[in-house]
């Protein structure tokens, strides 16, 4: 067995096992930790396929940001997962039915690929460049051919951010303490320090401070 195959089975096996643990562990924090393990193993699989850029993005974005966000949410919201699972057996038949339908659909999709005749593809697929790294290949098209799409996606995100702020931010005028940099900078020893003479044996309260 070659090295690559060995690592493939290692990553794939751990990914599947940890994915199973995500849904079966009792503690939600453990679930999120197993989710991170699954992500890292998926990243390993990407590296094996030669998609190192995608692997790094997976680690940086999903593990670094999304999973941490999940962790915060599960820790902050006091969700009683035992209670949520109470009706599990009650809904099992419906869940099993839905699962069965999805399974049948998947089998149909795989079995009858190309329903209603062959695809009309005539457009040649772009060859996979071998002389450049993933990141460079992506960067070349992302900022040239797909410049418009890239910038438009950025504007969509900006709009979403403005929208979230417009709809939710309420300025509280009273009782808000803000940093006043000018006041901080304008402080001088005269306004910030008070020199108190404390005689031995006397407490601070007795000096009148």
């Amino acid at each position, binding site marked *: 067995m070659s090295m690559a195959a060995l690592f493939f089975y290692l990553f794939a096996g751990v990914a599947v096992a940890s994915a199973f643990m995500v849904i079966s562990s009792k503690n939600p924090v453990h679930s999120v930790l197993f989710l991170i393990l699954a992500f890292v193993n998926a990243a390993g699989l990407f590296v094996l396929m030669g998609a190192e850029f995608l692997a790094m993005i997976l680690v940086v974005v999903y593990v670094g940001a999304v999973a941490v966000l999940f962790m915060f949410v599960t820790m902050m919201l006091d969700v009683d997962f035992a209670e949520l699972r109470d009706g599990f057996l009650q809904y099992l038949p419906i869940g099993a039915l839905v699962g069965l339908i999805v399974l049948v659909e998947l089998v149909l999709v795989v079995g009858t690929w190309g329903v*209603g005749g062959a*695809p009309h593809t005539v457009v040649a697929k772009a060859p996979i*460049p071998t002389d450049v790294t993933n990141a460079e290949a992506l960067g*070349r098209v992302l900022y040239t051919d*797909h*410049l418009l799409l890239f910038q438009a996606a950025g504007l969509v995100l*900006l709009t979403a951010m403005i*929208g979230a702020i417009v709809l939710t931010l309420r300025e509280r005028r009273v009782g808000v303490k803000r940093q006043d940099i000018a006041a901080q900078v304008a402080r001088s020893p005269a306004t910030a320090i008070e020199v108190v003479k404390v005689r031995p044996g006397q407490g601070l309260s007795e000096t009148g401070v």
Partner: protein
Amino acid sequence: MDATAFPALAPALPEIILAVGSLALVLIGAVMGDRSTQLINGLALALLAAAGVAVVVAPDAVTFGGSFVLDGFARFMKIVAFIGAYAALLLSFDYMERLKFARFEYAILVVLSTLGMALMISAHDLIALYLGLELQSLALYVIAAINRDDERSTEAGLKYFVLGALSSGMLLYGASLVYGYTGAVGFADIAEALKGGEASLGLIFGVVFLISGFAFKVSAVPFHMWTPDVYEGAPTPITAFFASATKVAGMAMFVRVIMEAFPSVTSEWRQVVVFVALASMALGSFAAIGQKNLKRLMAYSSIGHMGYALVGLAAGTPEGVRGVMIYLAIYVAMTLGAFACILSMRLKDGTYVESISDLAGLSRTKPAMAFVLAMILFSLAGIPPLAGFFAKFYVFYAAVNAGLYPLAVAGFVLSVVGAFYYLRIVKIIYFDEPTVAFEPMSFGGKAVLTIAGGFTLLYFVYPGPLTAAAGAAAQSLF
């Protein structure tokens, strides 16, 4: 591959102006806060005007790796959409000021939404189309709910958001099926891949899903359910924006995708478009009869008008596309005029009313406004020699020439049914006893009503330029 190859930016000049300008406005607003509202409102108007000029001077080309195109069609539609956005902005300032929810973000969101429309109109592949659509829609969801202390406004925003997200999902599903069965996202490439072959079932599924998504965005039956609620709930000037500019952009993307990507599967999409057009015309005519609220009535009216415009698309000829373009231009003018009137229904105590019975006796309290409103309503009903008649004439003419006789006849009959509820309002304006008196109109309202009313009334005197421009622009899709 040349790593330094950079796409030509000149054709996207209007979009660049809007994008950079809106970023500048965000900065001004962030630094100055709500004091900057007036300034940002003015600058937003200036930006839209500048973008409109840029549309005229930018060169025709396909750029950004084939995902963006500026041609006659895009130019015409963009100008109409910009006019709609400009007028809607003009109408809103006074209203928002009076109802105390004026915020500087509003104008910025309208500019961003207009930018999304421009991208939709110019999209030349499915990805650019989707991104433009999302940019437009996201901003629209927010401005529907911008009066966040008003229950109806937030309800409208939420409903629009949930249903809009659903329809975007359908559109994406259709787009991915089309991509799966053609291996291309560019409209020209899709048309190339489909040339000469029999359309496969999967591809037809994709086309139908795409059309469903488009029908939702232009609020055509059977995807119209959200329209009356959203139109009624959203603040009135924002409803004017929804009913004018948004419809133009949605229709433009509908026409471009169908005409550029699927010219060789005409028989497949035509039956869907014919059904959607028929159902929209019928629902727009019958469901509006029982309405008491003017904004709801305008919602059903816009559903019906989208049906008429789709008759032109169903023809699938340059004539038909020309009909759609003229229809939209005239529809935008009529709608903006009608909304300028609805926005002037302000009582002495500062509240706005919007029910049809409040218009009773308007001819005695405000004869000039009553006359223009009556003319706009006649025009919406399609009575000659007003502009609305010509709009319907061009689409039906194209449908007859394309051999779609039943559709054209049904359209004629349904427009007679639709005329009933427009004429009922005219009757209320002229023959009922006045109950309430309205305050004078705002400056923006007067300006919009004068121009829209003048255009509607006098279009028949000199229809040449618009018809010729639309005719030349329609050719760019064939």
